[in-house]
């Protein structure tokens, strides 16, 4: 595995020494300073979500595995970035290739991605904003196999998943794909990544949970979250960063962005409250972990919908998000019995599906920048289009992720050995301890 990364890296470095591959000079005409300001900030916000996720996840694992979670998140921040600028952006946003399955190689090495306006912001900034999505999406998956995946296999899987799953689905929805795969072209609504990001990652997580199998001692002998304040910190950073994710997806600083911002906030608040109430009803007490889990489910669900629904519609989206995710985690998961360590499928997959469908329910052309109405505004057919997008993404993501993991398992093995799992990945995979005991 090691050598593979190595090779890749070597080639890539050499290519830098050839200045000829650089970008062409161009004008800053058509660039709006306000929109650019917002997109600079939004990009930074989205980047911050990955450390947010790291703490959200890291607080929930056992003391001996927190660094492995943080490390995997940071690795996504590094590895995905490089893959994205070298080839991923091209696969996602290039012109159709393989019948629209993915983009072609026109933007490889950022060739042709310059400083000219794309919309009202520099093209290179658009590329970066999208690149931040390409970091967090794979990172979401890791919650499913936390505490037991080999680090080398992790890196390999993530790299391949980005190129073979994320980039294609991104291309279908946002990259202008035509023909069979052109979900965007077919009119599927996905403002900020319900299908591309959350269903995609959530379903891949389910596949991973199946391939990796259960942790030793699951479900009865797994000790509870080792540091819930860290999880709360992570949730807070996610909430904060998600404003960039959703309102940034307007790609401008306008009323559409404002609407997405408000919808995001309202849905999240509703979902957090809803989970707290469900908790209270079913287990007698409102829990902090429940509330932040609900909030994240709300953020997930509003993601595809935030550019199409009003703030009032967002209440409906948020409410449904927690109901669906709770049900998936507390009932379905138990019944089926897979070990999705940190409930990625429940929170991202299920709430993501709900959100995609909900966009088809509450979408309204009242919202600036949107002409599509949903079921509640007299257009029942939109629900069908949404469901179709969900199904395509689910099948594609599950199948490819499953196969990828199986192949990697054969080549290098995905699961750490029993002894390493007992001692914890921090020490055995990264040669570190998160906390000292005495000093």
């Amino acid at each position, binding site marked *: 595995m090691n050598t593979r990364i190595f090779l890749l890296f070597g080639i890539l470095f050499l290519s830098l020494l050839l200045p000829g591959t650089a970008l062409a000079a161009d004008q800053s005409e058509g660039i709006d300073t306000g929109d650019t300001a917002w997109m600079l900030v939004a990009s930074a916000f989205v980047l911050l979500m990955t450390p947010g996720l790291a703490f959200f996840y890291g607080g929930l694992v056992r003391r001996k595995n927190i660094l492995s979670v943080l490390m995997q998140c940071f690795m996504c921040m590094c590895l995905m970035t490089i893959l994205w600028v070298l080839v991923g952006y091209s696969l996602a946003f290039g012109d159709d290739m393989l019948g629209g399955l993915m983009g072609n190689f026109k933007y490889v090495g950022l060739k042709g991605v310059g400083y000219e306006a794309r919309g009202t912001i520099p093209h290179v900034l658009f590329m970066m904003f999208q690149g931040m999505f390409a970091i967090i999406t794979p990172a979401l998956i890791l919650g499913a196999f936390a505490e037991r995946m080999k680090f080398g296999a992790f890196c390999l899987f993530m790299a391949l998943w980005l190129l073979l799953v994320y980039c294609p689905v991104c291309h279908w929805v946002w990259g202008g794909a035509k023909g069979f795969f052109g979900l965007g072209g077919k009119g599927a609504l996905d403002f900020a990544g319900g299908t591309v990001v959350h269903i995609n990652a959530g379903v891949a997580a389910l596949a991973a949970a199946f391939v990796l199998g259960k942790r030793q001692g699951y479900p009865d002998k797994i000790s509870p979250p080792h540091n819930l304040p860290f999880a709360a910190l992570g949730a807070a950073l996610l909430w904060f960063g998600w404003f960039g994710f959703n309102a940034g997806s307007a790609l401008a600083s306008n009323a559409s962005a404002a609407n997405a911002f408000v919808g995001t906030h309202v849905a999240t608040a509703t979902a957090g409250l809803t989970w707290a109430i469900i908790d209270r009803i079913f*287990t007698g007490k409102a829990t902090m972990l429940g509330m932040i889990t609900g909030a994240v489910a709300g953020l997930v669900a509003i993601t595809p919908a935030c550019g199409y629904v009003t703030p009032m519609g967002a209440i409906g989206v948020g409410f449904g998000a927690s109901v669906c995710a709770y049900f998936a985690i507390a009932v379905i998961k138990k019944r089926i019995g897979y070990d999705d360590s940190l409930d990625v499928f429940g929170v991202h997959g299920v709430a993501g599906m709900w959100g995609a469908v909900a966009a088809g329910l509450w979408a309204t052309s009242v919202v600036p920048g949107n002409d599509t109405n949903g079921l509640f505004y007299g257009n029942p057919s939109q629900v069908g289009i949404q469901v179709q997008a969900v199904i395509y993404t689910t099948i594609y993501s599950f199948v490819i992720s499953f196969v990828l993991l199986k192949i990697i398992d054969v080549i290098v093995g995905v699961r750490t050995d029993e002894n390493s799992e007992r001692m914890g990945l921090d020490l055995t995979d990264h040669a570190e301890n998160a906390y000292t005991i005495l000093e």
Partner: protein
Amino acid sequence: MKYIVAIIQSDKLDNVLDKLEDNGIHLVTVTNAVGRGRQKGEAEVYRGHKEIGTLLKKVKIEIGVNDDFVKPAVDAIIEASKTGEIGDGKIFVMALEECHRIRTGETGNEAIG
């Protein structure tokens, strides 16, 4: 000389320390501990999954004393940490053969107090 080990409810520590002081016992060492006993834990809930913790937070006190301080020590601990509810803990007393004060090198009865 005796070596006393007491496991008590953690929030009673301040009380116990005060009462020991009153009974003339100043020197003690304290550590964190968790214990399994008759006491039922409070239910914990993580994403709808209910668990009853069996290991509950306690505090462990250790005291080296001369023989005639055993009773005052035990009494102080019982008096100050008893809530009457299950989970109050135990006191164990063992024989202590030697005691050294590191600073002075004193040993035995002089070293202990």
